């Protein structure tokens, strides 16, 4: 069953990803991108990291995808014009994929099945965030603030 679920999720995710990478229409690509993230978070649920999955949806679909479509909206005069496809990229990507798969297959220690696991509760994550990871948390807070301000400054109207 789980293998079936896994396969389903994998197919969904990869298909969405491929669509996002190759669709000609930017908007469709962006939406496929969102779908891909649904797939990814499904993977997370599948792997027992519910919280991460939820955060993934919350952040990527609720925020990043919206941002992307907004950007598409704001640059739409260009949307139709920018075409073209760099085929060398495909070769590179395929080469990398091949290399990675070869490496994975070569590494014997990777063919293992997971053990039974107690799910990571939100409470546990919260405790960790406030104890072991409190400094990274603060840093991320600062980073986000800086990114917010930086993004605002970047998109402010240039004074002529």
């Amino acid at each position, binding site marked *: 069953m789980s293998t079936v679920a896994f396969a389903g999720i994998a197919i969904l995710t990869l298909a969405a990803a491929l669509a996002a990478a190759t669709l000609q229409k930017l908007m469709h690509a962006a939406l496929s991108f969102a779908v891909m993230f649904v797939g990814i978070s499904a993977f997370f649920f599948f792997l027992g990291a519910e919280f991460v999955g939820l955060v993934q949806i*919350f952040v990527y679909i609720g925020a990043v995808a919206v941002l992307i479509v907004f950007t598409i909206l704001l640059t739409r005069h260009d949307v139709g014009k920018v075409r073209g496809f760099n085929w060398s990229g495909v070769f590179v990507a395929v080469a990398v994929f091949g290399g990675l798969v070869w490496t994975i297959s070569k590494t014997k220690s990777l063919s293992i099945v997971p053990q039974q696991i107690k799910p990571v509760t939100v409470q546990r994550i919260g405790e960790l965030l406030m104890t072991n990871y409190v400094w990274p948390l603060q840093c991320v807070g600062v980073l986000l603030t800086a990114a917010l301000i930086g993004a605002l400054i970047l998109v402010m109207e240039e004074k002529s």
Partner: protein
Amino acid sequence: MADSFDQIFIRAKQWLLSPISCRAPDWLIQVASSLLNIAALLGVFLTLFALISVLERKILGRMQNRYGPNRVGPFGLFQPVADGIKMLIKEDIVPARADKIVHFLAPVLIAATAILALGVIPYGRNMTPFIIDGGILFFFAVGSTTELAVFMAGWGSNNKFSMLGAMRAIAQMISYELPLIITVLPVVMIVGSLNPDKIVGAQSTYSLGFVPHWFVFTPWGATAFILFFVSGLVESNRTPFDVPEGESEIVAGHMTEYSGFKYATFFMAEYIGMFAISGLGVTLFLGGWHAPVHFLEFIPSYAWFFVKLSILLFIYIWLRGTLPRTRVDQIMNFAWKFMLPMAFTCVIAAAVWHYTGRGLRGWLWSLGVIAVVYVTLSILLDTRRKFAPRTYRFAE
């Protein structure tokens, strides 16, 4: 006896599952159980949607000193059926230059997310459809997808009214999503969990047997609830915050280019979103399915939940009948200048409440904190002074 009434739906589900529960593998039972939950959810809320759509029209009619729909069925109660049939048989018009796929997917997505959000609310004792550890987070995660759907509708229609409406909707949804989430934070903080069941459980006790420990009865809870409710109004694009689809301004906003069943889906999604947000409000602040006084516990829990939900829905309708539409800039200003600081104040007040012992002292302290911030904000945001006495230049 009361217990059996209370658990009647659970029993029913177990009974339905019993044929397969012995032989079938676990996952099959799980899937079947989930399907049953979904079916029940859809059944209940689509009925509720039908009921509310007609009730709203009737109540509004009463408020406007008219009858409202009263032709179809007794008291016009079958009006939604008629409307549904009409919608289904209407021509589905898709603009020629629309992005067909997106145009099609938008109502699907918006309805799906609204219904998904309903899945984590506890409707009664042991009556939570999907028990997720981070249920509240799930609620908001799927809720935030609505924005994408609205955008898709606006974009896919390739119409300037659609686009503008979508932009307005997204702008105000993003703006109010912050206070919405932050007003939930104090509750999560105090309970220490994102699990809706645990939140309801935390409100289950009573002082002196008749004062329920609902969070709405604490200063921060009350404030948070009001803020939550207002944000919920905005999130579901209800009057007085219905600028994205205000027909007198931009036709119907992002729904302009929709017709027929797709339009009905949007309409339904809006209502279901309303139910969801009200349900969450009930869960978070109004004690969920708990009775308001101890001795009324014998009445089934889901009854209490739907009573509270109905009251909130009535307030929605009531507000629609009462208040005029606000201006876009006022909505945004209100969100960033008032709602957000007040929401943060709630968080602080909740912390104060917690650290001063959750008793009367904490009650007064948190009240003080909120009062101070509220007064300060009122003074700072007071715009009355800015109006000069009007001079009639051409009247003399």
